[in-house]
């Protein structure tokens, strides 16, 4: 048993979960700030960015050290690779939170009657992140697969936002700035859903060894099924 190595792997997992906690808090605060137009929350989100960036760097360094010093194999190698990828995705979710906070600042105290269900989109995309992280904590591929299924709903809501806000700009050109801010927020939340999807795919890769990114597995299975029997 490589005790020191196992301890280091546990430490890597723990650090990633701390990073995940910071990111989850940032995205929740950003979406709350949208609903309440709370500028203080926007400020808190912006202030969290340096800490998230610092953690990303620390986790990368720890993962790099483990690759160099321990030369991991099989499930350990897949775990470290998954952590490196998830780390990058979490940092990008943190960036999306900051982007949303900045848009909310631009919106200021403007009216709330925008024809777009940002709270629903926010609720769905943050639920995806939470579920993806839970699947990581529990090494649960079924739960991770559940995250992948949610992504279509988020994409659909984002498409709705483009349609309704586009129509609003045509009908009320004087509210173009508001509509554009809401559109960017919708897009940011859709990206959060994409990052949650990536995290779930990395969990599946770590636990089962299957690469399901870009539907590789489904395409490979379809190709195999189509291949004539020999």
């Amino acid at each position: 048993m490589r005790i020191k190595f196992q301890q280091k792997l546990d430490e890597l997992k723990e650090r990633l979960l701390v990073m995940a906690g910071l990111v989850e808090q940032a995205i929740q605060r950003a979406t709350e700030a949208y609903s309440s137009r709370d500028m203080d929350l926007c400020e808190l989100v912006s202030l969290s960015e340096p800490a998230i960036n610092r953690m990303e760097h620390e986790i990368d360094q720890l993962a790099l050290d483990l690759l160099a010093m321990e030369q991991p194999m099989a499930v350990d190698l897949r775990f470290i690779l998954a952590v490196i990828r998830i780390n990058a995705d979490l940092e990008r979710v943190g960036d999306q939170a900051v982007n949303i906070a900045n848009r909310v600042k631009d919106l200021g105290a403007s009216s709330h009657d925008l024809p777009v269900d940002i709270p629903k989109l926010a609720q769905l995309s943050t639920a995806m992140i939470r579920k993806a992280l839970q699947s990581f904590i529990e090494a649960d591929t079924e739960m991770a697969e559940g995250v992948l299924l949610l992504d279509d709903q988020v994409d659909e809501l984002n498409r709705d936002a483009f349609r309704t806000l586009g129509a609003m700009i045509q009908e009320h050109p004087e509210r173009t700035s508001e509509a554009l801010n809401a559109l960017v927020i919708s897009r940011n939340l859709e990206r959060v859903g994409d990052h949650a999807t990536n995290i779930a795919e990395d969990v599946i890769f770590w636990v089962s060894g299957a690469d399901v990114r870009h539907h590789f597995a489904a395409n490979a299975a379809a190709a195999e099924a189509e291949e004539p029997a020999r």
Partner: protein
Amino acid sequence: MGVDIRVENLNAWYGQVHTLKDVTLHIQANQCTALIGPSGCGKSTFVRCLNRMHETNPIARAEGSVKMGGVDIYHDASPVEIRRRVGMVFQRPNPFPSMTIYDNVASGLKLNGYRKRRVLDEVVERSLKQAALWEEVKDDLKKKSGASLSGGQQQRLCIARALAVDPEVLLMDEPASALDPVSTAKIEDLIFELKSQYTIVIVTHNMQQAARVAERTGFFLTGRLVEFDATDKLFTNPSDKRTEDYITGRFG
């Protein structure tokens, strides 16, 4: 050119101890195949069965089928013939200490009755070049003994000696475990070069080395071949839990 090796239901014993149990695998021609596993798992016994060295121990015996390029080495060929077709390199370099570098390389040919100076000169030069040692020793061929070379050079000398008799298969039992990283890299580069002409089977405890040099890898445990697969598959996503436990260091 290298030949393929088909092993079927190979069993080996030392006295009453059953050290190799029903091993079946197909080693591809002109590829490097690595064998890994804990000490005493049977991997060295397995390679020693491939050149009939196992049976040189009076209490040892082997049963099963080993076909090298279609020839059953236990029924259709003599041990002497097989050992000419199958070169072997060991963990500790073992040049003949009292012989010159030249005589070390030429020894196998002389044993086979070759005496013509021009032929011997040609083969010695070719073998040393193949073993990437020629440039380092060409001026001292008949002046220095094999034992005067460094450990890494001695191992390449042993590889040159094995290549001189023009084998089809090269067996390497921990060829770099006694060498420093630079000499190890030279041996690994050499394996890469030699694959086009020989079938190579390497036993190693160093999994990174197996990952670097071999197309396919087999994992042995308590005399059985647990898993045999493409090297990248075996090291990133092994099928058998025992393989995973071994390569991730979770044994014990």
